[in-house]
């Protein structure tokens, strides 16, 4: 108890410095939180990709479409549990900057393929039975303030309707939540039947297939089997695991993402170095006082623990506050206005942050504490 008093009185000794040091650490950990969220965002949810799912796309590039008949062929392949398709729509809501992904899908099959999209039974029923019905992710619903029952007009960019109209009207019949923290809740999903019947060209074609395999360990063999099935046909395919597909997509950003992350790591450690230096310095300045403490009967380990406690307290207050503030700021959404669809602070990074806070306290406190503990009273007092 008397320890605590001493530690606190040391903080008050140079209150401004203590506060400034805490604030620097706080800023460093806000940056740490953003680093984690940005990294998560740039990887676009690789962590949540289904291990038992494959993505099958046109071999030349994803913008080339595949025949709708492939679904039945794929389902014939041994080891394939289920297959469904998706179709990129690329429409605009009011303005191009209001971007969110829209897909024309088979509702029953798609929801069966992605059990992490959570909808109530009533919402599912409504979607299955409403031709112009669409379900949207929570993130997009909140962004535009949409509710079930709203009518939403989307301007087709690539897809026009027969007769040339560009406006597609949809009825919002459900809002899905993600089963996991990293599930993409920005998607806008609507009935392929409505889309295929009304579009002016490309009937019967789909964008890509998603395939569920019985055994994830068998995924690579099945991917090869799928590609072999369509080899030498007019539309050859490239099948790969969902993880590899998402990774490949994220990698298209290239080393820019890596560079930004490297910069953030540098920044984080620079700030910690500066703060740590200040903390160590404040112990060194007190050599005399610590010697007096020892002279009046405090043992070496007493002094060591006291100095360490002080460092841990500064690191703890700054670090935990920083993580908290960072978390709050990140929960308010991404700083770019919708360009990073998945933007949150993953739990594993919060744990990592806590470890960093403790490590900071230990590292910055340990050396000065050791010195203080070993301090020889006579030497230190002579220096005064």
């Amino acid at each position, binding site marked *: 108890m008397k320890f605590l008093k001493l530690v606190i009185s040391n903080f008050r000794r140079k209150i401004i*410095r203590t506060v400034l040091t805490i604030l620097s650490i706080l*800023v460093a950990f806000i940056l740490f939180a*953003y680093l984690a969220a940005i990294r998560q965002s740039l990887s676009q949810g690789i962590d949540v990709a289904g291990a038992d799912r494959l993505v099958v796309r046109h071999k*030349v590039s994803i913008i080339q479409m595949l025949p709708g008949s492939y679904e039945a062929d794929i389902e014939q392949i041994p080891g394939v549990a289920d297959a469904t398709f998706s179709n990129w729509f690329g429409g605009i809501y009011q303005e191009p900057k209001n971007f969110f992904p829209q897909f024309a899908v088979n509702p029953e099959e798609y929801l069966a393929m992605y059990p992490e999209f959570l909808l109530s039974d009533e919402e599912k029923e409504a979607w299955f039975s409403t031709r112009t019905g669409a379900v949207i992710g929570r993130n997009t619903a909140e962004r535009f303030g949409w509710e079930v029952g709203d009518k939403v007009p989307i301007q087709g960019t690539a897809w026009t309707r027969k007769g040339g109209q560009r406006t597609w009207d949809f009825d919002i019949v459900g809002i899905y939540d993600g089963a996991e923290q990293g599930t993409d809740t920005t998607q806008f999903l609507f009935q392929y039947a409505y889309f295929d019947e009304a579009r002016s060209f490309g009937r019967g074609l789909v964008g890509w297939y998603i395939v569920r395999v019985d055994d994830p360990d068998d995924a690579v063999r099945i991917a090869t089997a799928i590609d072999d099935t369509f080899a030498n046909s007019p539309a050859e395919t*490239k099948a790969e695991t969902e993880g590899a597909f998402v990774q490949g997509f994220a990698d298209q950003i290239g080393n820019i993402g890596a560079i930004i992350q490297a910069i953030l790591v*540098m920044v984080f450690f620079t700030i910690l170095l500066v703060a740590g230096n200040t903390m160590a*310095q404040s112990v060194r300045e007190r050599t005399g006082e610590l010697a007096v403490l020892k002279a009046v009967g405090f043992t070496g380990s007493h002094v060591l623990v006291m100095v360490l406690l002080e460092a841990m307290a500064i690191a703890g207050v700054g670090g935990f506050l920083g993580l908290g503030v960072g978390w709050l700021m990140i929960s308010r959404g991404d700083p*770019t206005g919708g360009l990073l669809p998945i933007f949150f602070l993953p739990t594993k990074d919060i744990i990592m942050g806590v470890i960093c806070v403790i490590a900071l306290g230990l590292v910055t406190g340990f050396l000065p504490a050791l010195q203080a503990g070993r301090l020889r009273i006579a030497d230190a007092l002579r220096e005064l």
Partner: protein
Amino acid sequence: MFNWVSQIFALVQFNLRTIWQRKGSSAAALFGIAGVVAVLVGVLSIAQGFSAVMNASGKPDTALILRSGADTEMMSGLSRETTRIIADTEGIARSTEGALASAELFVIIDLPKRSTGTDANVPLRGVEPMAFSVRSDVNIIQGRPFEWGRNEVIVGSGAVREFEGLELGRRIPVGKEEWTVVGIFEANGGISESEIWTDASVLQPAFRRGNSFQAVYVKIETPESFQDFKDRLTTDPRLNVKVIRQDDYYADQSTAITGLITGLGTLIAGLMGIGAVFGALNTMYSAVSSRTREIATLHALGFGNGPIVISVMVEALVLALIGGAIGAGLAYVAFDGFRAATMNWQSFSQVAFAFDVTPGLLGRGIFYAAMIGLLGGLFPAIRAARMPVAAALREG
């Protein structure tokens, strides 16, 4: 007045000469500020480099025509008949061979990216003969132009650098065919350098586009005649198109990515700036407090508050400017000219570019450093001036 100025000079000199004695804490502040400036300049140089490519791509006398409602070439679609009507429209510049109009296809092809080894969306453009007159800045630097009607391509210098298998003489598999790279071209640093070009009539069957196109590029008679030309096309009852100046089109295409990078960069640099201000405050407070007695002596000798405040702020400013210069220099060495390619989500295709540390960015970084220094110096300076003489002399 003269006395005041000479007091400032004396104090500033005194302060600067003693920086070395406080090298530990001064270095910490300097280091922090250098870091902030390096990061600010470095991150913004990415956005700068990207928009430099986009800005080099457009000319005010070149326009492109898309289907109405399409906001990118990839989304657009135009029939052969439509492109003919467009090419016949009055207002397009002409050469001896005819109107300077090129109907084009714009698709992507999966090729591995060198930096990651994974497939990337490399833009592939099918052009008509007039394309080289419409974009006069395209010139072959290696090899020869492709021959019309044959499975041959020419590749932009940026694409050769960033993607695998595009060197002269290599073959690109496209469906069941293989196309040979016969030439490499430059385009004045513009976005075409990220693209692969071939004959549109070769690309159409390979990508099952029938006899359709996606965009028409035209050179208009003068930049001023754009509006008339646009009105002529948009009021033509046979057409349902939109007409955009090429420079506006590319400026538009780069908004998302430059916004993303600038947004992140500003956020990071802003937070770091706050951190650096704390660091500078710490340094300057300890600088002032270690000199408590000297400052009190100065007061006792009759130095005014103004010169004392200014001298502390100048010290902080000098530290910040040195830090800023180091940071800007680091950013220049590390980032200027660094080549990369990234996905432009608006065009859904890759763009090759080089980071660009401009003098403007360097100036901005150093200005930022100066602001940090001034903020970090202000409060400690005020404290120095307010110190009561008697108490301060007794201290220590």
